[in-house]
C-alpha cells in the first residue's frame, strides 16, 4: 500500500484520519449532529456519509446524552463509535453518560466490556464566537478516571492521533483546536511509526525555560519561543498531546535541564491542567527548580464575548511575561503586592 503525503488543513487531516478508520474497520461508525449531508459545521466529516453510507456516518437527533448513551450501547455490541460533539459548550448534556457510564463501564464489568469510543470535540476560543462556542473543558475529563484525553496541534499530529484514538480500546476524549482547523501542513497518512498516544513531544529544543502547552496554544508557544530567542532566551516547547495521562517523564527531563517551567492553556486557571502539571513537576523536580512554575491561562471568568476574548486568551505577550517571571527578570508582577 502506497503512503499518501499531501498538504492538508488540520480539519482535512482529521477527515482523512476518519476515512482511514472507516475503511480499515467496518465496526467504526461516525455519529453526531449535522455530520451527514452537511459534513459537520466545520466540514470535518465532509463527504464521508456519501462515501461510507448513512449507516456508517449517522446524523443523530439533537440530544448529546442520547448520542453518547447510544454509542455506549453500540460499543456493548462490538462497534467502535466516533462521536462528534458540535461545539465544546454542548458536551455538558452528555456529561453523565461520559463520566458515570462511559468512563466506568470497563471497571464496572471487571474488564468484560470494552468502550472503544472516541468523542471528538472542537474546542477553544479565538474565533469570535458567541457564548458556549469557545470553551476548554478538558480538565473535567482529565480528572475523570477511566477516560483518556488527547488533543492535537498540527495537521500531521491530528491525523495520526485521531487514528490512534479510534484504534484505542479505551474511551478517548479527542479535543480539536478549532481555531487551528484551517492551519495547513504536510500530512503523511501513515501511523505505523508514530509515537504512542500517551507521549508528549518536544517541538522546539531549548535550555533556559520549559514551556508546556497543548492544542491551540502550541503555535502561540512556538511564536513566543521564536520571539524569546531573538531576545537571547532559549525556550524548550513541549506539546503535551495526551492530557490524561500526562507524559511526565518527557516534561521532567526538560525541566531538569532548564530548571524553569511555564505552563499555558486557554482553560480557566483554578483547577485547570496547569495546576496538575505544575504540581506534578514540582513533585518530581523540586531540587532542579530555580523558580516556581508559572501558569498562563484563561482567567476564572466565563469565556467572555468575542470582542474581549483577546484579554482572556493567553497570547504571546502574556507567555513572555511569565517567562520573564520564572527567569527573575522584570515582569508585570514585579513589585506587585496582594
Amino acid at each position, binding site marked *: 500500500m502506497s503512503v499518501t503525503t499531501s498538504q492538508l488543513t488540520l480539519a482535512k487531516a482529521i477527515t482523512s484520519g476518519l476515512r482511514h478508520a472507516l475503511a480499515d474497520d467496518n465496526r467504526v461508525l461516525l455519529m453526531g*449532529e449535522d455530520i451527514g449531508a452537511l459534513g459537520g459545521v466545520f466540514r470535518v466529516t465532509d463527504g464521508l456519509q456519501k462515501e461510507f453510507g448513512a449507516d456508517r456516518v449517522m*446524523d443523530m437527533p439533537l440530544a448529546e446524552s442520547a448520542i453518547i448513551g447510544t454509542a455506549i450501547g453500540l460499543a456493548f455490541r462490538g462497534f467502535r463509535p466516533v462521536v462528534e460533539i458540535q461545539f465544546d*459548550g*454542548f458536551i455538558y*448534556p452528555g456529561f453523565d453518560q461520559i463520566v458515570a457510564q462511559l468512563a466506568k463501564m470497563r471497571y464496572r464489568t471487571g474488564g468484560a466490556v470494552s468502550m472503544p469510543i472516541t468523542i471528538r470535540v472542537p474546542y477553544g476560543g479565538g474565533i469570535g464566537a458567541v457564548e458556549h462556542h469557545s470553551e476548554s473543558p478538558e480538565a473535567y475529563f482529565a480528572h475523570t478516571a477511566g477516560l483518556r484525553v488527547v488533543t492535537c496541534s498540527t495537521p500531521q499530529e491530528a491525523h495520526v492521533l485521531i487514528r490512534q484514538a479510534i484504534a484505542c480500546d479505551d474511551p478517548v476524549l479527542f479535543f480539536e483546536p478549532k481555531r487551528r482547523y484551517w492551519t495547513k501542513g504536510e500530512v503523511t497518512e501513515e501511523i505505523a511509526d508514530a509515537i504512542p498516544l500517551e507521549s508528549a513531544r518536544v517541538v522546539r529544543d531549548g535550555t533556559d525555560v520549559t514551556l508546556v502547552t497543548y492544542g491551540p496554544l502550541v503555535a502561540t508557544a512556538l511564536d513566543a519561543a521564536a520571539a524569546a530567542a531573538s531576545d537571547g532566551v532559549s525556550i524548550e516547547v513541549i506539546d503535551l498531546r495526551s492530557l490524561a495521562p500526562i507524559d511526565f517523564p518527557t516534561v521532567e527531563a526538560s525541566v531538569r535541564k532548564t530548571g524553569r517551567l511555564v505552563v499555558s492553556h486557554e482553560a480557566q486557571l483554578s483547577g485547570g491542567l496547569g495546576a496538575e502539571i505544575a504540581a506534578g513537576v514540582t513533585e518530581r523536580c523540586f531540587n532542579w527548580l530555580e523558580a516556581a512554575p508559572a501558569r498562563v491561562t484563561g482567567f476564572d471568568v*466565563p469565556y467572555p464575548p468575542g*470582542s474581549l476574548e483577546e*484579554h482572556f486568551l493567553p497570547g504571546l505577550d502574556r507567555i513572555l511575561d511569565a517567562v520573564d517571571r520564572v527567569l527573575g527578570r522584570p515582569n508585570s508582577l514585579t513589585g506587585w503586592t496582594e
Partner: protein
Amino acid sequence: MRSTMAGHDPRQAEFLGQEDFVQLVTPAGERIPSPGFDPWVADVTDEQLASLYEDLSVVRRIDIEATALQRQGELGLWPPLLGQEAAQIGSARALRSDDFVFTSYRENAVAYCRGVKITDLLRVWRGTSHGGWNPYDVGMAVPAVVIGAQTLHATGYALGCAKDGVDSVAVAYFGDGATSQGDVNEAMVFAATFKAPVVFFCQNNQWAISEPVTLQAKAHISERAPGFGIPSLRVDGNDVLAVMAATRVALDRARNGDGPTFIEAVTYRMGPHTTSDDPTRYRDRDELEQWAAKDPISRLGALLDSKGLLTDELTARVKARADEVARELRAGCLALTAPDPLTIFDNVYATPHRGLDRQRSQYAAYLAMFDGGAE
C-alpha cells in the same frame, strides 16, 4: 381522546388530530371560520390587523438589515428568522407585559415585541455582550444558546408565579430540534406535575441546522405533550391570527390555573440556519418554493387587501417605519464598541471573590505595562 378542536371550547380540548392544524387565514389570504378559535380573535380590530402587518414587515426588515451587516463584517453571526415572523409576532403580541419569556437565539421578533431596544438585539452577535438587555426591563430573558435549557427556566419561573399568587405566565420558545433534548421533556414532566402556568411554544421550522424534523420526531411534535398530561395545539405558524388565537387559549388556561399548554407552530426557516450556514448542501429549492407560497406577510397583506385595508397610506407607513428601524439598527450596530478589557472580570460573582479579584488586579498591572507605550 384525540379530537380536533373545531366546535369545542379549545381550553378543554386535548389536542388536534394528525392532519389538522388551526388555520384562520389561508395562504391566499382568505379568512376561514373556526367556531373554536374565532372568539379568541374576535376583538382584533382592522387597525390591529394593520399593526400586525407592520410588525411582520418591520421584523423582516430587521432580519434583512442584520444579515447585510453580517455580510459587511459588522456582525460575527446572525440567525435569520425569515419565514417565522407570524409565529413569533402572533404569539408575542398575545402576551401581557407582566408575562415572562424565555427564548432561544432566533426569537428576535419576540424580543422586538417585548420592547427590547433595536440595538440591544445586536450585542450578542457583535460580540460585545453575552446578553444584551436587562431581562426585568422587558419581561424576557436573554437568549439561551444551549438547546432546550430555557424550557426548564420557564417552568421554574412559572412555578414562582403560582407561588406568588399572580396570574402572569411564563412562555418558553424553542425549536423542533430542541424537542429531542432531555431538558425539554423534563420540562413537560415538571410543568404537568406542578400545573405550572407555562406555555411551551415550539416553532417547528422543519429544520435543525441540516437535520429535518423527521429525524427528531416520528409523530407530530404536538402529539408529544398529551402523553405528559399537557394539552397541545397544532397551529399554522405562518398565520399570524391563528397563532395569536392559539396563544391566547394557552395563556388563558395558564392564568386560570389550568396549567401548561403546548403549541406547535408549523412554519419554515426560509433562510440559512445562521449566516454561517449553507443550506444548499442539504435541502432542495422545491421545498423552499412550496413554503414561499405560504409566506406569512403576503398572506396577511392579501387579507388586508381583500378588506380594502392595504392602502397606499398603510404601505407607506410600514415602509417608513421599517426604514427608520433599519437605520436605527445600522447606526446602533456601528456604535457598539468593545467594552473595557477589565469588564471581563465583572458580574461573575455578586459578592467580592478573593481569587478573581486578585486576577483582576494582576491583569490590570499587566495591562499597565503597555500603557507606558512599551509593546
